[in-house]
């Protein structure tokens, strides 16, 4: 533990903490994700793998910018495979890395919990990015709990500089303590740019594969390893207590704040003068430091995002500690919430913000892009009144108004299994359709499809193939025929995959051809057994931004029936002209890409190419 003594009020305190280093020579603005990637590269990592997932995606994208002779970086089919690949490299004696979002760790957990017993040869680091506040996820689980479950140390950087430093440090810890290490980031760290001082790459001397009994997870080896893992935990507790990265910021001893990660920044933002203990790792807990700190202050308050993880651990040490009684357990923390928490604790005045304007905020949910090829499929399902098991991707937005054509969504690849269950429940009168994107299908959908065929479920699978991982910003995957670094490779043929697992009813259609798409899905739902419809059209944003000739609405022909508005296309909105109490529609030509879906739907045939209506 290092002690930091600061002036009571940070008036002109340029010396305090890390300002000097952060604005000094060589500092460059980096997001947390860029900094983690830099740390991985500097540590001499040779193999890195990931499946894209917000907010972790840019880590691998940035790693791929470093020379390929330095490290192999790849997209894997899912997080478990990515972790297996990285671990294979660690077995092989080189430093390895794997990145994922919090829910990705659920997929990879099977491997991780055993890897913790096996240990490492080359250093093994996982960056796991949590999403407090659920900006772009399906839950806000707390990875620190996973660290404890898996007996894997969890480091918590509080800004981009620490993201780099801790990542490098994690490799040393991994090899010293013979364990994989989790660097836990959050959306706010991943996507915040701040100045970072970078270092040089240090090559790691590989000793090659080392044959040792614990390489093979068997009951006999695992029984021997478990006590070692438990002992490692206490060794690391001592290590973290002695580490200079455990910082005790000296101050008023009436109250002591214990915090880690992003919460530390919020505490520093709103509170001055009190004692603070900043932990670099939330697991294993630096117990000696915590004990010394708690003994030195009259009252202990823990500030942490999401679960009361540190709070519970410290309470179990026998200290009276407050935390979640002041700070919310659900959602992302913010300076405002931390301020209000301290106000409840009696340390600050509550801030009443004078409201400038009192009005309802415009509701602007994310929408499918104009020309999104997913729209047609859901329009057809809406017309068929199908019971739709959805999945994770842009197309989950079809659950919202106006399409409202999705009934369930759980996790990556869940749609097909969910549909099988709905069918086997035996009480559904509507046709049951699972909808799944191409990347999600490869990630976790194929075992579900095999299950459906094997168990003779009466379902239809609509495979929405837009040839990219769209939601996370257009990453390549095994179905695109290109690798992370852009090299050509084998391209998965979905129809062949479906036939190989025993699908007998299979049709490939164009996502933009509404009539054919509708007909194909209708026939598929009437088939007894597993039927698959593959709808093909590239994403309009990635890898190439598609923009065709725009369409316009011939206002005198528009009957204001609102049929086209059911698409939810952002290029369509109400014009000021009304007919019989309803708004006629207009098209924003700059955002229309000319997909023609609205043209196909319009009952009065008044949507025409803009060039035809305005030849000039």
């Amino acid at each position: 533990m290092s002690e930091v003594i600061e002036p009571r009020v940070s008036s002109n305190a340029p010396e305090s903490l890390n300002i000097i280093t952060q604005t000094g020579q060589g500092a460059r603005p980096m997001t947390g994700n860029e900094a983690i990637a830099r740390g991985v590269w500097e540590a001499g990592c040779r193999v890195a793998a990931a499946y894209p997932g917000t907010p972790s995606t840019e880590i691998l994208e940035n790693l791929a910018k470093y020379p390929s002779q330095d490290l192999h970086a790849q997209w894997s089919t899912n997080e478990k495979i990515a972790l297996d690949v990285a671990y294979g490299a660690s077995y092989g004696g080189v430093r390895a890395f794997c990145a994922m979002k919090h829910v990705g760790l659920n997929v990879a957990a099977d491997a991780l919990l055993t890897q913790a017993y096996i240990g490492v040869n080359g250093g093994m680091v996982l960056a796991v990015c949590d999403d407090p506040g659920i900006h772009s996820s399906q839950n806000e689980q707390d990875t620190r709990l996973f660290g404890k479950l898996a007996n894997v140390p969890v480091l918590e950087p509080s800004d981009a500089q620490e993201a780099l430093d801790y990542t490098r440090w994690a490799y040393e810890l991994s090899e010293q303590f013979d364990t994989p290490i989790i660097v836990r980031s959050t959306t706010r760290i991943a996507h915040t740019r701040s100045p970072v001082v970078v270092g040089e790459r240090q090559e790691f001397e590989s000793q090659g594969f080392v044959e040792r009994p614990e390489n093979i997870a068997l009951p006999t080896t695992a029984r021997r390893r478990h006590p070692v893992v438990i002992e490692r935990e206490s060794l690391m507790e001592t290590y973290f207590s002695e580490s200079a990265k455990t910082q005790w910021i000296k101050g008023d001893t009436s109250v002591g704040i214990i915090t880690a990660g992003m919460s530390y920044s919020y505490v520093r933002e709103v509170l001055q003068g009190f004692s603070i203990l900043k932990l670099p790792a939330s697991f294993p807990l630096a117990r000696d430091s915590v004990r010394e700190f708690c003994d030195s202050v009259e009252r202990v308050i823990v500030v942490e995002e999401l679960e009361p993880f540190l709070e519970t651990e410290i309470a179990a040490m026998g200290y009276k500690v407050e935390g979640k009684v002041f700070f919310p357990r659900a959602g992302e923390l913010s300076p405002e919430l931390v301020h209000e928490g301290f106000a409840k604790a009696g340390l600050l005045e509550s801030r009443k913000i004078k409201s400038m304007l009192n009005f309802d905020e415009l509701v602007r949910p994310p929408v499918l892009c104009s020309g999104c090829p997913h729209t047609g499929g859901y329009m057809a399902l809406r017309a068929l009144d199908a019971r739709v098991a959805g999945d994770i991707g842009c197309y989950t937005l079809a659950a919202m108004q106006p399409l409202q054509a999705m009934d369930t969504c759980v996790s990556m690849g869940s749609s097909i299994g969910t549909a099988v269950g709905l069918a086997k429940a035996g009480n559904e009168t509507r046709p049951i359709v699972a909808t799944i994107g191409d990347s999600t299908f490869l990630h976790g959908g194929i075992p579900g499809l095999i299950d459906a065929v094997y168990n003779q479920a009466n379902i239809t699978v609509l495979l929405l193939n837009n040839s990219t991982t769209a939601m996370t910003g257009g990453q390549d995957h095994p179905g695109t025929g290109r690798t992370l670094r852009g090299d050509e490779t084998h391209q998965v043929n979905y129809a062949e995959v479906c036939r190989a697992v025993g699908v007998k009813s299979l049709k490939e259609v164009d996502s933009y051809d509404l009539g054919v798409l509708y007909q194909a899905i209708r026939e598929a739902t009437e088939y007894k057994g597993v039927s698959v419809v593959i709808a093909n059209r590239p994403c309009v944003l990635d890898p190439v931004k598609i923009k065709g000739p725009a369409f316009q609405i011939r206002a005198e022909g528009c009957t204001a029936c609102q049929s086209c508005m059911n698409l939810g296309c952002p290029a369509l909105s109400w014009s000021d002209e009304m007919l019989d109490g309803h708004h006629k529609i207009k098209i924003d030509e700059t955002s229309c890409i000319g997909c023609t879906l609205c043209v196909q739907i319009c009952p009065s045939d008044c949507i025409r190419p803009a060039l035809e209506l305005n030849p000039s």
Partner: protein
Amino acid sequence: MNATVTGPTNVLIVGVGGQGVIMVSKILARLSQQQGLQVKQSEVHGMAKRGGSVFSHIRFGEEVWSPTIPMGEADVVLGLEWAEGLRWLRYLKPDSGTFISDTKRIVPPFSCRDRQHDAKHGYAHHTVADIVAQVPNTFAPDATGMAIELGNERVANTILLGVLSTVMDFPVKDWLKVLPEFVPAKTLETNLKAFKAGRAWTKKPHEPDLRQTTVQAQAGPLMRRQVSLEITEEWCKSCDICVKMCPERCLALDQRQIVKLVKPQACTGCRVCEWLCPDFAIAVHVEAVPAENISVVTATEVRV
């Protein structure tokens, strides 16, 4: 306890996915870093790319801790779109904050979802004049309109940066030095023009842009419409066209395969079924009825 002597400067840049919020923030972040200040710039992306609300917090000063701006502490809120600018107004410093926003309106599909008769836009109803009345430091140019006049709609953001440059302390030459790093070389000239146009706009006196008409809620009409469907069952041949084409999905075939109005409250009387029925089996009747006579279910089925 909570006295910050020289707190950081806080700028919130907001807009709709795809408008360039992140690019604008990067320019400002680079500029502040070049002044030797500590900078934190925080954004959230992912779903926001899909036409949702996008925001970026930029904080710079001698010491910056939190990457996000606490509510009520933004020195400037810069909106690339009108309703998005308004959304973040509550983050502005109540007395001294500056509000800069394009008057461009991007109306989301969600605002046009009301299918009732005489439905109103869900879009923000406040005009520039409304806002100026409450936030005196408001700059609301029609930046997109000005950009189109300059020949490139995309330079609207640079016009807003020009406006922003008049309320920040950085020297103009520094802005002009940073700009070329972030805009494509072939549009540099237009961007520099746009920047200057933004600065010039603040110098000339102007009325608040009142062209933006307020969509005022009108007094409720005394007469309301009542919609009813007259279905001639003998003529219906179960072709399903009306069922498939009804925008509100309020028709269905019954057990005898005859069309039936199953969700009368959803029927808007748009007449698509009447026009499309090949057998003239559906007639839509819309009549004005005194409002008090209308029950909750506004449409009824009439069988002949």
